[in-house]
């Protein structure tokens, strides 16, 4: 944990970790007997699912929850579904998990290589959505897609993570193939490669559109990359995608390249694992592997009340079970010792202004948090720039009163979306009645 420095005259600048020189190959985690697959769709007890307990799945088979579902998860091996259960995430987000017990056949589903005949977005979106790195194929393939620029991020999205940097330094040829492939598939020529400025083999990216990033955390945020390097000022209340810029992890580009080379989906994901002592290890695990498999193989122990951080210290989330599976977008696992966990408090804002000084988006956090605490979400958007927040988490990191500001902000955005959806629905019914 980075503590406040003695001199506090200016706002602290947090630096991203850089990949160590001469990184070792990731340790292979053997495929466990049971895989846990997450489906981003809520389980509805009133409807009949089209996959059932006891069904068999083949490797590469897409599993849909309901007949009309558009979301799917790809089975990384052949086996039997032994459990279908609901999973609850942040802010009431519901998902479903399937337990796939592998058989030893490892049998591919028929016609799996068809997508690779002609690289185009629609067929790729049909099969490759759950590739490691979670390529945003759904977004790119959408008929009304307004994406004009793609940024492939070789810099990690949070402080301690080095997965993407590792892949950037190790797999340069595949990255180039991936970028060519993306250009062919999407017809978008503006593909940028965001790489750390201090990378040793910077010259390998010559001739490509590169965006060189310093270690400064704020500079690695997508909105800041857009503003500083692409000359597009982010508009409050819209995402980067709305403004035509699609951010993609480097692993997504690599997996696409590998999938088209092998003419089959790939399932192994590189993950940086950081233990309580700060030791960095990298593993290669199949999507769906429960994280306790990784921890036990690395000899990392967890105790009661520790925290399992997935993602990173500023923007990640905490898992409540070691059976949490490896997911396509999971770059980092951090074990935080229970004694290292900073508490939050129920203090009100004391107006010290540290959040206002550190906020890269210029949000008046000191005022905003008062409205959020009082559940006044519309006012928070209208007058206090809730929609301009770019989710960096720095306000909570510096808060003297230790208010969970970032959580309030996320909740506020979530509630605001629900309110808007409600209002739209009301207007629609009114229009119908009229």
């Amino acid at each position, binding site marked *: 944990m*980075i503590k*406040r420095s003695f*001199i*506090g*005259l200016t706002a602290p600048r947090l630096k991203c970790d850089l990949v160590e020189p001469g990184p070792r190959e990731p340790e292979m985690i053997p495929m466990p007997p049971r895989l846990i697959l997450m489906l981003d769709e809520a389980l509805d007890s009133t409807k009949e699912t089209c996959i059932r307990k006891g069904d068999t799945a083949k490797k590469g088979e897409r599993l849909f929850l309901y007949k009309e579902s558009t979301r799917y998860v790809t089975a990384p091996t052949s086996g039997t579904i032994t459990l279908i259960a609901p999973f609850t995430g*942040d802010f009431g987000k519901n998902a479903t998990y399937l337990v796939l017990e592998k058989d030893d056949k490892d049998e591919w589903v028929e016609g799996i290589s068809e997508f690779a005949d002609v690289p185009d977005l629609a067929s790729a979106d049909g099969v490759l959505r759950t590739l490691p790195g979670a390529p945003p194929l759904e977004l790119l393939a959408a008929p009304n897609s307004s994406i004009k620029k793609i940024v492939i991020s070789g810099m990690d999205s949070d*402080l301690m993570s080095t997965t993407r940097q590792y892949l950037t330094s190790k797999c340069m040829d595949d990255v180039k193939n991936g970028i060519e492939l993306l250009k062919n598939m999407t017809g978008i020529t503006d593909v940028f490669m965001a790489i750390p400025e201090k990378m040793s083999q910077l010259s390998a990216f010559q001739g490509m559109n590169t965006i060189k990033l310093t270690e400064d955390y704020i500079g690695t945020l997508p*909105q800041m990359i857009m503003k500083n390097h692409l000359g597009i*000022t*982010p*508009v*409050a*209340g*819209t995402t980067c995608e709305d403004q035509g810029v699609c951010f993609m992890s480097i692993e997504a580009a690599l997996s696409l390249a590998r999938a088209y080379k092998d003419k089959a989906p790939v399932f192994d994901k590189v993950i940086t694992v950081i233990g309580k002592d700060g030791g960095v290890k990298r593993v290669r695990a199949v999507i769906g592997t429960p994280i306790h498999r990784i921890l036990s193989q690395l000899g990392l122990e967890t105790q*009661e*009340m520790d*925290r*399992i951080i997935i*993602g990173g*210290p*500023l*923007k990640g*989330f*905490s*898992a*409540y079970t*070691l*059976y949490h599976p490896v997911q396509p977008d999971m770059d980092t696992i951090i074990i*935080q010792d*229970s004694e290292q*966990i*900073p508490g939050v408090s129920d*203090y*009100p*804002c*004391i*107006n010290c*202004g*540290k959040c*206002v*000084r550190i906020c*890269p*988006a*210029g*949000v*008046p956090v*000191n005022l905003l948090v008062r409205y959020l605490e009082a559940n006044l979400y519309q006012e928070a958007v209208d007058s206090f*720039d809730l929609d*301009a927040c*770019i989710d960096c*988490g*720095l306000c*909570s*990191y*510096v808060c*003297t*009163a*230790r208010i969970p500001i*970032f*959580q309030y902000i996320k909740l506020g955005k979530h509630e605001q979306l629900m309110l808007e959806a409600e209002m739209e629905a009301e207007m629609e019914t009114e229009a119908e009645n009229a």
Partner: protein
Amino acid sequence: MHKQNKFTVSHAPFWHDGDSIGETNKNIMVAALPAIVFGIIQFGMAALGVICLAISSAMAWEALFQFISKRSIKIGDYNAAVIGMITGMMLPATVPWWVVIIGTLVSVVLGQQVFGGIGANPFNPAVIGIAVLSLSWGNYFDFDAALLNYQFDFTALVPLGALDHQGPAAVDLFSTQGLLMGNQVGAIGSVFGLGLIIGGIYLIIRGYIRWEISVAYIAGIVITAALFQMSNPEAYAGPMFHLFTGYTLLAVFFLAPESSSSPVNLVPMLIYGIMGGVMTILIRNIGAYADGTLYAILIINLINPVIDMIRPKALGKGVNNA
């Protein structure tokens, strides 16, 4: 599935810079130490008694009020201790015990708790306490009378009082260096200019107060006093005299930058500070009070919410979508 550990689950971020309200308040108390220790050396054990009583009674009032209002008792964060300490610093060493206790009652309860406690006070709580005391029992704030029985080896007059009565001729009684080194009559924590400056610089470097406010306040004092002096050197004292007398330095580093009652954006901080300095000198030179600092602070506290609306546009606000 084997028995699982229970993990701590919470929302990001999972790191914190380690700062806390208690830590901030402890640093403010450390910063005030040079001035207080000097006050105790200058005015004797009576000063120590006032400071200790002020701190302890302030904490007791806070605990009592939080108990009565059924809030959780949080005297461990030193919030009341800081309010009590600053209230005590603004009192003369010879003040009766009950004045101290009433002062901290007003500071902590009327100044802060009735508004909702820490973070909710629109005015600096300690200033509210001292303003009420000085209006109600003004004779105890006549520092000349209060410290009559002391033997000092310097001009035993309150500089600002002397200025009020004798005009700028009084300025010659005090050297700037002497004022800086505490050779003046006044409140326990306000006489040792150098100590307050050291404490203030410490707080600024550590980032516990906003330097913009302090610098702007000093600028306000210096510019306004200099303008007055230039217009009529016969009638008005110079900026250095104003800067090192009365509650000025206490206001610059401890009263004006109190976090809840001061702005956080750059331009408002500058306006707030300069206004404080200007008002202090205006009250001293034109108004009825010899030391206008208390009322200057209350006035800038009053305008704080309005001026703090002046803020830069947030990212992506007010840009054309085209």
